[in-house]
């Protein structure tokens, strides 16, 4: 199955990685220039960049691991390509699994089918952006101008939807696992996941209090990644307990 790991695919992957980096740098430079024109201080912009960079390191690890896992099914270069552009570790893993499961023996022709399905499957978001995002953002900006307080609450509430589902899922799973109210296969690992979630929350809370008391602003950038690393490290212990 050399066709999955051919030099050609690696070259295409490199071209795409360069494209994504170029686009990011382009938008970054443009945003910084705009920020200066608006009178934003370099410090505020640098803070945003540094906090985003330090935050992004830890969640990148599972993405790399997803790439490694996928490499076994669809080859290293295509899984690299898929996770670099519109990639999402959950989508790619599910999609590759579904398609590979439907495929049977892997020939170049079957592989081509997988590539097409995985490519077509991800385009609805960007397609919408090309045709409809301007309208949508204009509408949002109107709300923001008419009622700035509500606009801020609206965005908070949208984000709370994510937090409630993702956090609530692990809390419920942990409670169900500890109480034994749901079948074991569904809540597998629930106790340790709940403890990991709580550890992350407690560490972050401690950081918040320390930062407030000591006024050590520089700590803010490290609070999230260190809380996550601490929680993940302790998850090894929790995992062994259950």
């Amino acid at each position, binding site marked *: 199955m050399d066709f999955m790991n051919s030099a*050609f695919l690696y070259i295409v992957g490199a071209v*795409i990685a360069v494209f*994504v980096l170029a686009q*990011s740098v382009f*938008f970054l*430079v*443009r945003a910084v*220039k705009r*920020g200066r*024109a608006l009178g934003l201080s370099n410090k505020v912009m640098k*803070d*945003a*960049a540094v906090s*985003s960079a330090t*935050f*992004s*390191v*830890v*969640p*990148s*690890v599972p993405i790399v691991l997803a*790439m*490694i896992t996928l*490499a076994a099914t669809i080859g290293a270069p*295509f899984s*690299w390509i898929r996770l*670099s552009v*519109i990639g999402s570790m*959950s989508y790619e*893993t*599910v*999609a590759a699994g*579904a398609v590979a499961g*439907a*495929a049977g023996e892997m020939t170049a022709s079957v592989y081509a*089918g*997988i*590539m097409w399905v995985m490519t077509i*499957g991800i385009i*609805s978001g*960007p397609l*919408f952006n*090309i045709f409809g995002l301007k309208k949508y953002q204009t509408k949002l900006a109107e709300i923001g101008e008419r009622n700035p307080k*509500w606009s801020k609450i609206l965005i*908070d509430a949208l*984000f*709370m939807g*994510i937090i409630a*589902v993702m956090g*609530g899922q692990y*809390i419920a799973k942990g409670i169900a696992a500890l109480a034994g109210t749901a079948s074991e296969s569904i809540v597998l690992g629930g106790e340790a996941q709940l403890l*990991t979630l709580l550890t*992350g*929350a407690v560490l972050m*809370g401690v950081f*918040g209090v320390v930062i407030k008391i000591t006024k050590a602003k520089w700590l803010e950038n490290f609070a999230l990644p260190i*809380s996550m690393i601490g*929680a993940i490290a302790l*998850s090894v212990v929790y*995992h062994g307990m259950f």
Partner: protein
Amino acid sequence: MKKDQGLMLNEYKEMTHRIGRMWTAAAMVLIFAVPLIFCLMHGVVPEWGSFLRGAIAIIPMYWAIGLIEVFNYSPMLGSGGTYLAFVTGNLLNMKVPAAQVALNKAGVSATTEEGEVLSTIAVAVSTIVTDLILILGLLFVIPITNWINADPVLSSVFDLSTGYVIPALFGALGVVFLSKSWKVAIVPSLLMILVFLLIPATYAVSGILIPVMSVLAVLIARWMFNKNMI
């Protein structure tokens, strides 16, 4: 690029959309070129049977999710951030939290002019970091695979669905946003815990619940806002 400086707000926004569309279109051409050139090089056509089975399995659902994601996340990302984030992906686990953390720190919202700038910076930097780490990962792909697979504990810690990275992320992130706006958070969070406890089958569809819950959280917040509770 020099032209951007001192542009009026509307002109700048207009430019953002034009540039964003161009980059998005270029990205689409590029990703479609991959399977196309593969087919031409190997002189094959896709095996239609497995193509169709795969397509039916994933395309309707992921097209819907992709659209919902734009509606759900673009208010938190701003225009520039949305164009960029939707080309590079990993929204829920990376781009949206990265932008929210940066905006929260500066105390501005993504729909303001300053927020637009800061969220674009956050998404761009986050993308660069992930891309560089992916390249590093690729270099070490074989040794790392062997190391993780050889260690049963490590492989379960980093497992995508039953692992611990996502709970660690949302535990830490949850505290920040719960303490910031707990009144908005409390009802959706309790409701979600209750639903998951009473109907364990919903774990499997938690991804689909996010947009549902976001809309519900907005409705609850609106009600509280109208009653002057927040």
